[in-house]
């Protein structure tokens, strides 16, 4: 596979994962905000903003809808949902010949539907529905990707992009509730906020089947970090990253593969051999930062080994 193609596929899914994460955080927030007191609702918005590292986009007077607009539809904010979708589409367009017509059309149609919302306010008519529909469309796109594309090297680059991004986003979200970013928010999380956290990872029902409806923060952390089977847990993503790295660049010489595989092995060991009890006694912030940093190192190693390597090193 062309290195440039691998690069585009990888980023296409990183951006799609980012767009999906933003859509879900906002959808869950909009659906639950009506049941909260004003103070709690403000703290909850602050958590959403912090989870998306978007504090600098916020102003004192911002109301819920203008915050939503900034996070979702601000075309000039490179980390908005719409901009992420735009970048995903730009990348898909670069590798249009590698995607099936179904994948491209699903992505293109969603983008063309949402793009006008940067400039018109029609989405205000029913925001929760719009974000639900966007999530559904993104899920459909993922399904179509899995069921129409061959699961060859390109598909594994998509997987790699999705799960490197997802692991980092979930780590950041957990940090807002358990780690260093928590102190920046005035109010302590309530029972209600823990529910929101689970729903923000599509995790409420899967959590209940494992731990019942007993909501305990350390159980939530354990589930979102270490569950083997739940697709939005950090450990699940770590396993998928490992699978993907075993399958990409099949013809690359062992010396180039070694650097990547060593990092993947270390990340897997970190996820496999850490206990939630140790983390809850104070080290969780460092742990989350460590996982995110290891994902970043894997990203760099993949680029050095397979994408941006110098031609002189292989001739």
């Amino acid at each position, binding site marked *: *596979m*062309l*290195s*440039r193609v*691998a690069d585009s596929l990888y980023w296409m899914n990183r951006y799609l994962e980012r767009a999906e994460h933003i859509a879900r955080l906002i959808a869950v927030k909009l659906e639950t905000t009506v049941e909260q007191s004003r103070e709690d609702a403000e703290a909850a918005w602050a958590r959403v903003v912090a989870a998306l590292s978007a504090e600098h986009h916020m102003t004192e007077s911002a109301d819920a809808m203008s915050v939503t607009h900034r996070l979702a539809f601000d075309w000039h904010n490179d980390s908005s949902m719409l901009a992420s979708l735009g970048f995903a589409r*730009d990348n898909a*367009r*670069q590798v*249009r*010949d*590698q995607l099936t*017509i179904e994948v*491209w*059309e699903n992505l*293109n*149609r969603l983008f*063309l539907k949402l793009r006008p919302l940067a400039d018109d306010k029609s989405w205000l008519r029913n925001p929760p529905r719009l974000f639900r529909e966007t999530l559904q469309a993104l899920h459909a796109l993922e399904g179509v990707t899995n069921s129409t594309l061959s699961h060859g*090297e390109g598909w594994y680059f998509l997987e790699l992009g999705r799960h490197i991004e997802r692991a980092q986003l979930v780590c950041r979200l957990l940090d807002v509730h358990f780690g260093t970013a928590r102190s920046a928010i005035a109010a302590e999380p309530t029972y209600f906020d823990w529910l929101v956290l689970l729903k923000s990872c599509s995790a409420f029902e899967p959590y209940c089947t494992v731990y019942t409806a007993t909501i305990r923060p350390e159980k939530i952390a354990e589930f979102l970090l270490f569950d083997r089977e739940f697709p939005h847990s950090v450990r699940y993503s770590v396993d998928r990253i490992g699978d993907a790295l075993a399958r*990409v*660049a*099949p*013809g*690359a*010489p062992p010396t180039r593969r070694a650097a990547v595989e060593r990092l993947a092995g270390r990340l897997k060991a970190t996820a496999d051999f850490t206990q939630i009890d140790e983390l809850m006694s104070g080290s969780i912030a460092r742990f989350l930062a460590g996982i995110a940093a290891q994902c970043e190192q894997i990203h760099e190693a993949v680029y050095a080994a*397979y*994408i941006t*390597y110098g*031609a002189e090193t*292989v*001739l």
Partner: protein
Amino acid sequence: MSSAVKLTRVDPAEPGHTPYTNYRLGAAYDEMFASAGAVRMHYAGLAQSLADLPGDELVRRQQACETSFLHQGITFTVYSDKQATERIIPTDLLPRIVTAGEWDRIEAGLKQRIRALNHFLHDIYTDGRVLKDGLIPRSMIYGSKHYRREMRGLPVPHDAYVNVCGTDLVRREDGAFVVLEDNLRVPSGVSYMLANRDVVRRAFPDLFRAQAVRPIDHYPRELLATLKALTPVRDDVSIAVLTPGVFNSAYFEHAFLARQMGVELVEGRDLLVNDNVVYARTTSGLKRIDVIYRRIDDDFIDPLIFRDDSALGVSGLFNAYRAGNVVIANALDTGVADDKAVYAYVPRLIRYYLSEEPILENVETFLCREPKSLGHVLANLDKVVVKAVGESGGYGMLVGPHASKAEREAFAEKLKADPENYIAQPTIQLSTAPTVADGGIEPRHVDLRPFILHGEQTVIVPGALTRVALKRGSLVVNSSQGGGSKDTWVLSN
């Protein structure tokens, strides 16, 4: 030819409710109507289908067709005010129909023409027999900015310099198809030929079946076979389509052809040359490339040899080509033969190389380098179209009837200063074909661009891109100036 066409009479059942209310026949040949109300035989099926459609159904289908193009991303990007907007090239729903007899003649004429043009290219890059014999002035060839000294004496596979050609034909007032332009460099539009077929077949499924339209879907397969036959490599031939990238207006087509052929789509930055061998950078290491179907102009293909400000090309590609380690299609020198001055000589070239009479005529052309012609052109500037010989895409031209007096006078000075650089042609009334306009059907001017594949064999898929000038009365079919396109149906009997 038109006298052989049988007519069926369609009388609008209810005057005032016919979609043809605004169908005014002009001086041009009309593809559908021989005269007011008299439909040509091969359009009778379409006429009936349209008559059977409920009132707003035509418009509804036209919109469905446009939405389909937008979703598929068959768009080009227009840059203005920092905002990049994507537009579709409008496809008109009504097919343009070509009879089997007309097609046979076109096909034979195009095959003859591409053979002669390839002979000509081979000749001027080797012995120059045609120049020694004085058929064509030396200065016209050696002075052309598209003549590449670097190519002299370089063998090309099967002596086929032009492997993909998109020739523009127009139909004159008398009904004869004549050649307007040979596009021998990087002709585009074939993806529209195929995409148009897809949507129009869906819009008129019954008519399509009933008409016995010849299929065109095998074009990518034929293109692949043509490219494969250009290299002596037999096992595991590695072919790539070289595109300028996603910002090129034909990018959709490049990606489409790569996908349909199952070959790699590469950009200049994916390729590198080492020891005169071309490689693509892949995740697993470097992969050798044997054949490049290039969709980049000569000038940009290798910054070491041609334009050194090109970021699109590949350094060292030309040396790899000269060393015979990679095939580039079309070859890097074909522009000299679609020069508008050479065009005027093509009928003579056909007689010279093939000892045959040209099957397809040229549009009457005045070479301004000949004093008699220059005098005629200057005296008739308000009636002719003047074109600069080395340009394409509508640049450097004067459309006499539409120009102001001042524009004509200014152009006359340019002409007198550098007559060798110009040719002139009478304004031709391109034929008109029924086209959806304002909810009804009106005649619009069209041309015809079939695609010719030439290598070991010469293959023409029975179809073409029909470009249509969507503005009433306009003769300009270019997509950049309000042109659209139509599906082209070649009938099998």
